[in-house]
């Protein structure tokens, strides 16, 4: 049982790490939101499932926390995306001449 729980904890932490890594690697805000939201949501859910396997008597409150994360995380991300969209920021495009360019040309328009 504990091994299974640890497996879920490990998967959760791995996805949280991936999400944070994506946050660093992605070239513009929209893509950072994509990487951050998806990976970290699944990571948090998997982690909480692991905790639930360790302490089955906590299931009710863990369910509330998991449901809350699942419902609010995309809302928060979309509200940031909407804010920068309304501020007129366009999505990043790969420069045609330099396919490996990781610079986002429109980045300094906002704030």
């Amino acid at each position, binding site marked *: 049982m504990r091994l299974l729980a640890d497996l879920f*904890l490990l998967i959760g932490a791995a996805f*949280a*790490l991936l999400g944070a890594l994506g946050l660093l690697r992605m070239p513009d805000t929209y893509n950072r939101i994509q990487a*951050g939201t998806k990976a970290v949501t699944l990571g*948090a859910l998997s982690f909480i499932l692991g*905790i639930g396997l360790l302490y089955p008597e906590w299931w009710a409150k863990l369910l509330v926390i998991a449901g809350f*994360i699942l419902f609010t995380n995309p809302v928060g991300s979309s509200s*940031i995306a909407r*804010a920068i969209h309304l*501020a007129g920021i366009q999505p990043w495009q790969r420069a045609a001449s330099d396919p490996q360019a990781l610079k986002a040309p429109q980045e300094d328009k906002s704030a």
Partner: protein
Amino acid sequence: MTLNPLELIVAAMLGVAVLLGMLRLILGPTAPDRIVSADTISVIITAGLTGLAAWLGSALYLDVALIYGILAFVGVVALARTIEGGRQ
């Protein structure tokens, strides 16, 4: 509960994830980027607080995690509305 080596690795990975998020928070370069990383960090920490509850064996930290998550969400939405330009 004492942590076995695997769980120590898990805790370390969560810590590194928060640090990477912090790096983006510091690097920016724009306000929305910082809000995104604050959002990501807060979700990781919410999950981490449930882990802390398990480690210390106290269900009290689950309430902390829940309230922390709620406050973080409200904060992120408020910040997003603040930087929102254009349409009135």
